[in-house]
């Protein structure tokens, strides 16, 4: 069996792969944490406009240290800058953009994704202080809801599963998953394998996936640069 730990993509490489599918002119929301990395790999010659749910369209990278304006932050409460053409709006308008189908792409992290498109990414179900933020809103309304994630958990358990065991963020909402080993679409309640690392066999990939990987046409090699 392939040594997955030495073969798999880094988080930066997963983010790079997800960035390749963002079209020129797309309005995009990136979840806080790991998904924010996707913006670094925007394809040259394409312009995406990033939305942050606290009320900015077209924000840019972090300012240099000492130049922060703490009224100008993103959903992760990190200081950001503005691009020419940026806009501010209140929270109800911001979530109208989300739920109203105006965003082209939302990219989120995941604890588990089910073949039905169900997503669990807000609660480990273990008690403590529960916090949901905008996760349950973001999974509804964007034309494409994509997940970026390691293919398995830190203990090696599948994150792509038949049914989520953790509390759901949304039902039947995810359309594509970019993992550390593969690119998988969710269509008609099934995982459909689109790309996989050449170094891992279909059998080995299936062995670390908690639901059947279907194929529908050729499976391309998942090719990502060293980053």
């Amino acid at each position, binding site marked *: 069996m392939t040594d997955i730990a030495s073969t798999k993509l880094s988080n930066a490489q997963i983010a790079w792969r997800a960035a390749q599918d963002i079209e020129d002119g797309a309005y995009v929301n990136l979840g806080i944490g790991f998904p924010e990395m996707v913006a670094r790999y925007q394809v040259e010659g394409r312009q995406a406009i990033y939305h*942050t*749910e*606290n*009320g*900015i369209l077209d924000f840019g990278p972090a300012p240099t240290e000492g130049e*922060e*304006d*703490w*009224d*100008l*932050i993103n959903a992760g*409460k990190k200081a950001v800058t503005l691009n020419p053409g940026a806009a*501010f*709006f*209140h*929270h*109800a308008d*911001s*979530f109208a953009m*989300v*739920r109203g189908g105006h965003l082209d792409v939302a990219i989120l992290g995941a604890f588990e994704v089910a073949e039905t498109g*169900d997503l669990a990414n807000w*609660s480990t179900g273990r008690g*403590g*202080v*529960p*916090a*949901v*933020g*905008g*996760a*349950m*809103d973001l999974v*509804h*309304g964007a034309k494409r809801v994509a997940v970026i994630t390691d293919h398995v958990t830190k203990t090696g358990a599948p994150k792509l599963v038949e049914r989520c065991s953790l*509390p*759901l*963020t*949304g*039902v039947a909402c995810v359309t594509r998953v970019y993992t550390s080993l593969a690119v998988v679409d969710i269509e008609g309640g099934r995982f459909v394998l689109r790309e996989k690392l050449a170094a891992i066999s279909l059998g080995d990939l299936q062995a670390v996936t908690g639901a059947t990987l279907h194929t529908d046409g050729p499976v391309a090699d998942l090719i990502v640069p060293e980053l």
Partner: protein
Amino acid sequence: MDKTVASPADAVADIPDGASVMIGGFGGSGAPIELIHALIDAGPKNLTVINNNAGNGQVGLAAMIEAGMVAKLICSFPKSKDPRAFTERYLAGGIELELVPQGTLAERIRAGGAGIPAFYTPTSFGTDLAQDKPTAEFDGRGYVQERWLKADYSLVKAETADRHGNLTYRAAGRNFGPLMCAAAAVSIVQATRIVAPGEIDPEQVVTPGIFVKRLVRVEAPQQEEELNRAEAVYP
């Protein structure tokens, strides 16, 4: 017409025990620190607070929770860099939490100000946060019924106000401000500048004055993030 009052202390003096209070801000962005601190000085107890978060550090909303003034918090994300004040009380059973998805929180407040008692949203359908709520299907998709949210008071931070209460905001500090001005019976706004009517271009007004009850000038407002970096503690 002049909605200006003399000080933050005067602006919040009548907020009684048991009141519901919306507080603007997303984290520290747009947080009305001076109004919150004036409310801590006034010290009403048993408050229901509506805010996106649950405070950070030992200033602002966190200090209000630390002072034992908050019986219930309605919010979407009660976590922050330094959430001690809320976390300790919550885990000890000393504060009630109503967790609401962020967009639903915003829309409930908007509905409260707009006279819409309930609405349907796809958000949270099929999840634990939709438990015991009515659902319905529209065009083949499931939706959850959510109720409006109103409050006795709101505390909001604006950039420029005129004496009629027309407001502009600063950057992403706008966030919940316009919604909370409309959804509270008594909206209290701190503004960096208060100008004469006519000095704000009507085309640039974000919150029309009809939604604002009281104004107070806070010339150099403090930022929660900067206070926390300086390890400030209030009071």
